[in-house]
Each structure stands twice: as structure tokens, then as C-alpha cells.
């Protein structure tokens, strides 16, 4: 018996075994991955707090980190626009009186406090995103919320407390095309 004819039944069996119990259609070239191996990328925090990591931070802790890592762009008091850098103001609760996006502030516009944690962790500081520890992100979130008078000076933020922060403009939004959702 030649080598080739000896292989044929084996090949046929192998194909049957692979294709049979798994998915019959499609190339199936994706590699399975479990939650532990995708954890480093799984940074989404949802509006109800799903995805918030362990850790905590207070406004006082956040003030120190802010001075070191944020003030150079957002200004010493979070009012934005330092020396030609166009970083957004972080403080501001004045009412919205114009359709201009320049009115949007965390205190008067953002509907969810969870967004502040999510965005700070994934995108800040501008030059070095994803370098803050979770405790630092909680502390910065607490500092900015406290500066906006949305939490008390000594309120620690963590996975339980952050989603409970009531943002003033929570109900200020209209879905444009509900049928598309």
C-alpha cells in the first residue's frame, strides 16, 4: 500500500471529526479566548456600573494626582485652556443657555458619572493613556465630581458608590430615532 492511499482514510476521518460537532459553515478561523485572557482589553464600564474594577479613591487623593498629571493641560483649577492647549474645562455647573457644544460640562451635561471613570481610564492622561492605576482613576473621578459639588469632599468613589452619583442632567436627553435601536 502506498503512503498516499494509506493516508486517505485517516484524512477523511479527521475532517469528519473536526467539521462534525463544531460549526458546519464558515472558515472558523477565530481562536477561542476566555475572560481572563481578554481582561486587559475589557475596559468597558457601562452606565449601571457593570465593568467597574475593584479599587477606591477620595477627592483628597485625587487632588494630588490631578496636580501632578492633569493640571498642565486642564489648568490648576480645572477650568481648561492652559497656554494654547485646548483641553476641556472639567468644572462648571452653569445652566445651558445656548445650543453650543461649548456649554457642555461634566456638572451641567454629562448624564452618567460612570462615563468619567471610563473615559479617564481609557484616554487620559492625553500623552500616556492607560497608565493610571484603578485607584488613581477612582481618586481623580472623586476629585472632579467633588469640585463640581456632585459629591461631598470626603466621599470615596468605588464600584458601589460611583454608579449611584446622581448627575443633574441625567434626564436631559432625547433619542432621535428610537426605531433604529
Amino acid at each position, binding site marked *: 500500500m502506498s503512503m498516499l492511499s494509506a493516508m486517505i482514510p485517516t484524512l477523511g476521518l479527521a475532517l469528519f471529526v473536526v467539521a462534525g460537532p463544531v460549526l458546519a459553515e464558515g472558515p472558523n478561523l477565530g481562536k477561542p479566548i476566555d475572560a481572563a485572557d481578554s481582561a486587559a482589553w475589557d475596559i468597558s464600564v457601562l452606565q449601571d456600573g457593570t465593568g467597574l474594577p475593584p479599587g477606591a479613591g477620595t477627592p483628597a487623593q485625587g487632588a494630588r494626582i490631578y496636580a501632578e498629571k492633569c493640571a498642565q493641560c486642564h489648568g490648576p483649577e480645572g477650568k481648561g485652556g492652559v497656554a494654547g492647549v485646548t483641553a476641556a474645562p472639567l468644572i462648571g455647573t452653569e445652566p445651558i443657555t445656548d445650543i453650543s457644544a461649548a456649554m457642555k460640562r461634566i456638572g451641567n451635561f454629562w448624564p452618567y458619572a460612570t*462615563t468619567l471613570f471610563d473615559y479617564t481610564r481609557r484616554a487620559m492622561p492625553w500623552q500616556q493613556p492607560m497608565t493610571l492605576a484603578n485607584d488613581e482613576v477612582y481618586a481623580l473621578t472623586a476629585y472632579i465630581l467633588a469640585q463640581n459639588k456632585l459629591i461631598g469632599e470626603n466621599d470615596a468613589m468605588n464600584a458601589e458608590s460611583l454608579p449611584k452619583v446622581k448627575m443633574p442632567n441625567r434626564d436631559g436627553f432625547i433619542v432621535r430615532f428610537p426605531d433604529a435601536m
Partner: protein
Amino acid sequence: MSNSDRRRDATRSSDLKTVAANGLLDRRMLLGRGVVLAGAISTGTVGSLTGAAAEPLTDAPWSQEPGATIGPYERPSRFEKDVVRTLNNPNGQPGAQGARTPHHLTNGAITPNGLHFVVSHGGAPDIDPDKHRLVIHGLVKRPLVFTLDALGRYPMVTRVTFLECGGNGAPLFSPQPLQANLQALHGLASCAEWTGVKLSTLLDETGIDPKAKWFIAEGADAPHLARSVPLKKALDDAMIALYQNGERLMPANGYPMRLLLPGYEGNMNIKYLRRIKLVEQPAMSFWEARTYTQILPSGKAYQFYLLQEVKSFITQPSPGVTLKEPGLYEISGIAYSGTGHISKVMVSADGGRSWGEAALQEPVLSKAFTRFRMPWRWDSGAAILQSRAWDEAGNVQPTRAQFVAQRGELKAVPPVGAVLNQHFNAVTSWAVDSAGEAKHVYA
């Protein structure tokens, strides 16, 4: 009279038929160039075509020596050096960078890759395609990771579709018409042919947990830009785009892969796509909860606008594209709708008092740029040019007055290039003066 004679006669009789005020002509005149000229000459309206004879023809220097060596990747002629995108943040300061398409200097329906608009919220990352990964996880039965190589072996689809930034046209929220050209006003929209793998093909392999209602798409760029998208779109026409006009995506347009959501707000078409997570509720990311929301006169704001609605604008003539002498011209422009096909474009030369129907260049594709053309006899009088589009679902592009009545205006004139509100899809007006110069006006 034979049938063909009758047809020719019918065409000729409509050649110079005026269909609306200020010289708009029947679009059927565009069917054949010879017929147009025959009709035009007979009534003496062609201007210089009937004037002085041409100069004698001679060989130019470039016809008397071999041309340049052909290079591996070609760039446009040096004479086209001004056909480039305009940049709002050329030094890459922290913050968004915009690069706007010069619609007044291009034609057809496809945007060349080097001129495709970009809005970047963190610069263009230098991604090694062999090391890039796409993970699909969350509410799926089987979380999977794909390499670019693996995606290249899946069944592919090709479609032409436009992309438009939610902030395109934002200068028209100004209470006074900004004196800027088309590129500054509507340059944040482009149209390309995209090739890639349908997202539904990949979801067939991961399976979908019935609890999933949304997916979060996230990029591998510095801000890890993330948007929540209704799962409905994934099962409809969403795709993972791998090629743009036949070549790999440009770096600033998402190399090596981006999410493509035909007809949806540009920012949702996540570039450098590395993760798709199926979830029950939207994340309320920074970009959907704050940046891509639109404040209304009531103080409330639209959120998850999703669709880019039916819109059109005239590309030629437009500010900077001057009419040099009276005569026959083609008014040309672009129409598109995130809902589907363009069904009709009307053009006015008298500020919207009378309208004529424009010719639509085939093929008219769903959620793609459609080039429209309208023959026009300009007698050097003042005119206000407008276009207005309809889509297959019956949606009509609003006039600016109708639009502003609902969406409001800014209190102060913004700087050119500022995006202070979004989803402006109303009519744009160009006033042409007796010198043939076009200017942005509200009419």
C-alpha cells in the same frame, strides 16, 4: 417621420427648454453633448464657442522628449498641488484633528483615499498589521480572536458608501452665513468603495446570547475610542472594512481595519477596530454621552442620533469656483442619505422660488454619494443656487429656515472650523454675483 427622427426632434425641441427661473434648463439636455451644442448654437447662447477662432496648434516641450520615469506609487500631477485636505489642527495639539475633503476641486462620486476626510481624536497609530487582533466577546456563545490574516480568508463583500462626521456642516448653525468655501462648510464627508467581512458573518461563528441588544466597538488608538451600536445594525449591513478603494485602509482611516456602519454617524465607524463586546445596554461612553450629542433650543439634547439624514450641496459653482463668462454651465453637486437611495434632487437658481429636477448620475447606490447635474444658462445676472434632495423613504432635505426652526442657531458667529453643534443637513445657498463669484448666503 421615422421613429428615430421623431426621437431626435423631441430631444432637440427640449434642448434649451427652461425649467425654472434664472436659466435652469431641462436635465435631458445632458443626454448628448452634440445635441446640446447644436441647439445652443442655433439660438446663439454659447458665448465664446461662437467667438474668435482658436490659436494655431504647436507641439509643447513635453511632447518633444521622453517623459518622467514611472514610479511604484503614483502621486497627482504637480499642477494639482492645491487639491489637498485642509487641516484645523496641523500641529497635532491635544484635541481633535480634522482634515476636510476639497469637494469643489473633485468630481464624480468617489473620494480618493488621500483626500478622504478624517476626524481624529488621538492621532493615527502606527499599527503592525501582523500584531493587530480583533476580539469579539461579551454576550456571545464563543468569544473569538481574529488576526488580519484570518479575516482575509472570510467571504468578503464590497460596497460603496459615504462616511460623514456628525459635525459636518456645523458652520451653518452660525446666525450669520460664514464666509468660507465648500471644503470648510461640508468637507467632513467622503465616499469610498469598501471591501471587507460582514460583521454578521463573524457573529455566526461566535453565536449571540439572546440577551444582547447592543455592541460596543472599540479602537486600538490612544483614546481607545468606543461607541455603542444597536445590535440590529450588526445583523443588517455592518462590516469590518479591510480595503478602501481597492487598497488597504489609509492610516488615518483606520488601518488595518475599521468598523463600517453604512449611513451611520462617522464617529461610530470605529477605526483601528480591536474589540467588539455584545452587551444588554449602551455603555454611555464619553463620545456618545457627551461629544456626539446635540443641544436643542429647549436645553435638552439628542443622543444616539445614529443616522446621517438626507442631504445635498452644490460643488460647482461654489465659493472660489468662479464663472468666467456668461454661457452654458453645468451645476454639479453631491446628494446622499443614510437611509438609502437618493430618489430626486431639485435645483433652484432663484433662492428657492422655482425649482428644476437635476439629472442623477448612474449608478445611484444606497447610502452612497450620488452626483447630480443640472444644465444652466448663466446670463451674468445675480442668482442664488440651491439644491434639495429626496431619498427613497420619502425623506426630504429641509430648507435652512425649516431646520433652524427646530434645531436653533448659535448665539454668536463661531470661528470657521469650530464644530459647536451637529447633524446639519439643510439646504446650502450660493449667491452668484454679476462677476461670477459665488458666496455663501442664507436664502
